[in-house]
């Protein structure tokens, strides 16, 4: 199982804050997960998940989209951070 969290403008675009999926993503990459979500949920998701400045995190660490996934991972997608 993989948990996927969406924040800020990405959360608003896809209309959900959290999603869990049971698909076998073991050994596949974050980019594969994005493609899978976009093909399953459509153009709005594609646009949100493939925007050039999207930040990808796995288990609360920012990563590149070619990072491998493992069962139990928490993946997050969000726009550039604007704290402080």
């Amino acid at each position: 199982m993989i948990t996927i969290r969406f924040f800020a403008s990405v959360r608003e675009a896809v209309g959900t804050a959290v999603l869990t999926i049971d698909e076998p993503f073991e050994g596949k990459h974050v980019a594969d997960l994005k493609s899978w979500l976009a093909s399953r949920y459509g153009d709005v998701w594609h646009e949100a998940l493939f925007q050039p400045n999207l930040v990808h995190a796995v288990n609360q660490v920012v990563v590149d989209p070619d990072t491998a996934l493992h069962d139990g991972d928490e993946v997050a997608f969000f726009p550039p951070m604007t704290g402080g």
Partner: protein
Amino acid sequence: MQVFIQKESFDVGAHYDFLVRAFSGAAVVTFTGYVREYSDQGDLTGLELEHYPAMTERRLQELGEEAAARFDLKTWRIVHRYGRLEVTDPIVWAGVVADHRGAAFDGCQFIMDTLKTDVPFWKREYLSNGKVQWVEAKNNDNLRRQRWR
């Protein structure tokens, strides 16, 4: 405890007092950030801050530890709010103690410059004309962050 992530406001003086009592360093530098009354889009009535709780806490802790190691800080503390904030409310506070002013200034600035771009908070502005919009990341913030790499 060195990291405080909270909805409610905070007492800058109390955090300052903690720092100077916790360690008898020679130099103390603190920064407080407040909600501005305006943005490039017009006057503001307030802000809303969203965050990614598990990651926010972890990143702020790592950031403080990295600053302490890099600038030889005696101690440090970071406070950051989330949720709805009104104009002039304090949003963020960072304080550091070091042996000398150079390390204290650099340590506090490193924390703030890195926090802006690397810790998962997102600001949404409430404008006085009724519009609500996400704040875009600023290139100037990225440039300030780059200086510390």
